[in-house]
């Protein structure tokens, strides 16, 4: 189906990021580097209570702090606060310290409520405080059933039951959320750290009742976004209001503390799984019950701002008899937002753990068990390639049979991501100048994945130029419409659009210059014939160049110290596909990032809430632990190039299977299942039966 050229010089090869020099030299201006004329710092005053009714907010003393130019409330009137860290007010001033002083001068009168609940199991209890008045914390269950589970289980040769849990994972991109906003009578300009310049523009316009045409959003460079940076956010709207009041641009970037509280997270999951297979290894019956929290954004009839906490069960596998029951639990904590492959990493961890547990019970090799049951021919192929490359057959031993105190183990897991063929409305243009220079302009954004580079790679390939001859401009709502970067859809949106622009460019050059083929060596001669006026060509997404549904499998080897509980990941092999490979090194970089993020989910990351005070206890990288370079193993990536499928995104599938594969490798090493993420030394020692009972409660 694919119309992409073959015998390529750049496509499917490796081109260095075209913006590597500015990034490396520091001349790249990220959203948090923007210094608009006369700009002010902005900061947010947040609730220190998990539940309260705000009666009044007095900003007068804050406004008297030297250097303070504006102060605004987040919401007018008496406001219900439902979680620790919710926005109450904001200030803008000429220095950080002025803002900090002003925050301490804000006087809030509140009716503090002592009824709140911050953890899932407490919230599920009958007498639990209600997060939303008049609505149960636990949503009505969503039930999906096929076949007959009740008759199928007795037919199974082996059945396992497990309870697999995953924590809340907090969004922590390198650059925090935030904007610099300048709002004058002429309109609003925002320099945003965003994954979606258009959705941020629409968000500002909606919240502030402005015409879309009066709002411009610019994102030249931004430091990462994983699903939580699509709107202006409360912080953007507050920055706008501060800007208007102060009559100056306001830069309001969140601190790490802010970041942990109120800009989204991956919901938790508590998965009770019962699963059985026939004697030949065919999965035959699956029963899954899951609940999780999306913070205040779920449960009851809340409607929710963060969606629910459902995950795909039984994930990759088709089981002819299944019953799945899921519900979301509301708690007094910051709400969920989309997080790289929403639903998939927890689903993969639960299901792939259960797969290994059942394989062990059946006495089957875990990869053979997957080959027997995985319906995807692509993953089948990937498992076979991975097995060979990893030396699975030679390495695999029965769980717990590794000798000594430090035990090694191996595991694997698979991924699926639907994605899409791209946003059909994606547009772009290229300006071709008589001197042969060419500039592409698309209203998308490069969130660090290399979008600018793939535009240059595709254009160079199709026009017979070099990538460094292509100027690429993105990240401005003044350019033709482009979609947000989420769901692994940027490449399949952008690539066909650039293809179309190039086709149109060659055709129009031919028409205007009479030269049959303007590519390569003829390029400059053709452009020169344009005379004095540049040629601007438009293009849009077209069919037949992109598709969806990426797969991917990962193999992991770990060492586990059975006395200290420390898990060391020794090796990760990822076998991945995403249709036509556009640029190999940025692709590998994105998979490396996905794997390292998956390691954090597997071993370190966890939001910790305090039941008694209702606060979040680890709003920093000291105790919200992320993988460091010393934790990261040798990562090997094998790519399957499938030009015949066209372009597919890779952002999400890269991170899906890492945690499941690590968990299985740990279980294989120590002969016991750690069924709760993150797999900390404490949990490893507990799984090994080494942890004594606590002392009787004392005060």
């Amino acid at each position: 189906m694919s119309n992409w050229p073959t015998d390529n010089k750049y496509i499917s090869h490796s081109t260095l990021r075209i913006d590597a020099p500015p990034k490396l030299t520091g001349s790249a201006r990220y959203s948090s580097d923007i210094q608009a004329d006369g700009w002010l710092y902005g900061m947010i005053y947040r609730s220190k209570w998990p539940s309260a009714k705000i009666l009044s907010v007095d900003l007068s003393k804050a406004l008297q702090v030297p250097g303070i130019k504006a102060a605004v409330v987040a919401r007018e009137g008496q406001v219900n606060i439902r979680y620790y860290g919710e926005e109450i007010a904001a200030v803008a001033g000429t220095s950080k310290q002025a803002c900090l002083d002003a925050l301490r001068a804000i006087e809030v009168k509140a009716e503090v409520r002592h009824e709140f609940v911050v953890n899932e199991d407490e919230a599920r209890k009958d007498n639990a405080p209600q997060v939303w008045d008049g609505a149960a914390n636990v949503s009505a269950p969503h039930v999906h059933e096929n076949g007959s589970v009740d008759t199928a289980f007795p037919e199974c040769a082996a059945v396992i039951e497990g309870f697999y849990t995953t924590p809340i994972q907090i969004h922590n991109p390198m650059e925090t959320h935030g904007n610099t906003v300048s709002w004058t009578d002429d309109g609003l300009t925002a320099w945003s750290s965003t994954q979606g310049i258009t959705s941020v523009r629409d968000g500002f316009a909606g919240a502030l009742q402005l015409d879309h045409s009066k709002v411009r959003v610019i994102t030249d460079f931004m430091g990462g976004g994983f699903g939580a940076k699509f709107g202006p956010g409360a912080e953007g709207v507050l920055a706008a209001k501060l800007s208007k009041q102060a009559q100056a641009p306001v830069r309001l970037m969140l601190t790490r503390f802010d970041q942990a509280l109120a800009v989204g997270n991956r919901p938790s999951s508590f998965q009770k799984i019962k699963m059985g297979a026939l004697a030949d290894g065919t999965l035959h019956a699956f029963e899954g019950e899951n609940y999780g929290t999306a913070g205040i954004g779920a449960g009851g009839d809340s409607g929710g701002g963060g969606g629910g906490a459902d995950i795909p069960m039984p994930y990759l596998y088709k089981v002819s008899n299944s019953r799945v029951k899921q519900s979301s639990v509301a708690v007094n904590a910051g709400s969920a937002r989309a997080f790289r492959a929403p639903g998939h990493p927890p689903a993969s961890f639960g299901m792939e753990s259960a797969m290994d547990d059942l394989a062990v019970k059946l006495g089957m090799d875990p990869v053979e068990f997957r080959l027997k049951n995985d319906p995807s021919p692509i993953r089948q192929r990937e498992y076979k390639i991975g097995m060979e490359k990893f030396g699975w057959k030679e390495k695999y031993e029965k769980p717990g049979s590794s000798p000594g105190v430090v035990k090694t183990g191996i595991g694997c897991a698979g991924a699926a991501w639907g994605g899409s063929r791209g946003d059909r409305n994606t547009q772009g243009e290229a300006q071709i100048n008589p001197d042969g220079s060419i500039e592409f302009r698309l209203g998308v954004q490069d969130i660090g994945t290399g979008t600018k580079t793939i535009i240059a790679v595709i254009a160079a390939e199709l026009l017979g130029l070099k990538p460094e001859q292509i100027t690429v401009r993105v990240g401005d709502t003044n350019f033709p419409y482009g979609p947000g970067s989420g769901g692994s859809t940027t490449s399949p949106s952008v690539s066909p659009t650039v293809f179309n622009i190039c086709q149109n460019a060659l055709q129009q050059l031919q028409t205007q210059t009479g030269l049959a083929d303007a590519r390569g060596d003829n390029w400059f001669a053709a452009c020169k014939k344009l005379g004095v006026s540049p040629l601007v060509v438009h293009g849009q997404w077209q069919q037949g160049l992109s598709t969806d549904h990426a797969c991917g499998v990962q193999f992991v080897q770990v060492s586990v110290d059975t006395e200290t509980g420390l898990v060391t990941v020794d090796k990760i092999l990822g076998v991945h596909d995403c249709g036509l490979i556009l640029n190999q090194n940025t692709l590998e970089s994105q998979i490396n990032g996905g794997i390292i993020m998956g390691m954090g989910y597997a071993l370190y990351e966890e939001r910790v809430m305090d039941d008694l005070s209702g606060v979040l206890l680890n709003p920093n990288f000291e105790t919200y632990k992320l993988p460091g370079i010393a934790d990261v193993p040798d990562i090997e990536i094998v790519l399957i190039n499938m030009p015949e499928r066209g372009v597919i995104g890779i952002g999400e599938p890269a991170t899906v299977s890492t945690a499941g594969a690590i968990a299985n490798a740990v279980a294989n090493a120590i002969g016991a299942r750690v069924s709760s993420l993150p797999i900390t030394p404490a949990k490893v020692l507990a799984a090994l039966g080494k942890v004594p009972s606590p002392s009787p409660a004392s005060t």
Partner: protein
Amino acid sequence: MKAFEYATAHSAASARDLAGSTGAYLAGGNDLLGLLKDYLVSANILVNIKSLPGLDKIESGDKTWTIGALVTVAQIENDAEIQKVFPGLHDAASEVASQQIRNVATVGGNLAQHSRCWYFRHRDTVCLKKNGDLCYARNGENRYHSLFTGNSCISPVVSSLATTFAALDATAIVLRNGKETRLSMAELYQRAWENPLAHNSLNPGDLILRVEIPTTRSRSAYLQASDKHAFDWALVSCAAAAEMDGGTMKSPRVALGSISPVPHQVEAANQFLDGKVLDDTIATQAADLILKDAKPLEHNAYKVPLAHALIRRTLLKLKGAA
């Protein structure tokens, strides 16, 4: 943070005078600046002590080594002689935080650093350590907290240098009321054992000048266990030191960090080990003695087997065998 004055002292006495009872000494600043920014402590004046003469040196001696309070953790880590004479101290220094922090963090600051308890460090909780009514950790999230305490606060000491100095029987020399006072590591932290408001026994105005380490124990070792492989606090740390006569231990000492408000030392265990030939059984029995009175809470009971393993490993490392 609140506004403060800033001054540079050129002698210990003038540092003391400048700081008075409401100032703070500034050396590496890693802990102090964080505490100030989080409004956890306040100081009307910061007295820069980095220019105090003579305190940035490591001095060897036949019977005693002296390490100035301004010596950085990186200096200890990179000193080839220390690595030979006090290998445990070298290993402890190399595990502290990150390279960047070790480059500026000083011995004095490492010893004097405040609690890392996440309730104490939280801007919106008022715990016992901040003059509040209760220890939130005791019945709350206590995975990183103590197995031992003499009061209601269960925040542990986290200085890995203190743990190692305790095993080496080092002495801190503190300028107190104009006089040099000698404090053992036990004495340097004793008040934290008794009083939830204290994280060590230093009085306002006290200034750590140097640490003296006797060369009595030619073997020393340090190990820590963490959630991560680098730049992470110890869940438990352990240091041991002894003179070895063949396989027989003389004057052995074991100390643990992150499980008590003070470096955890059990004299009975040191006596038990004295004169023994070190092997796995002996090490295990010593670990049993050291952890006998541990009072694990809901989430930190894992520290008991973890500490047990570290004690055994650290002791066996003294032999050079493990």
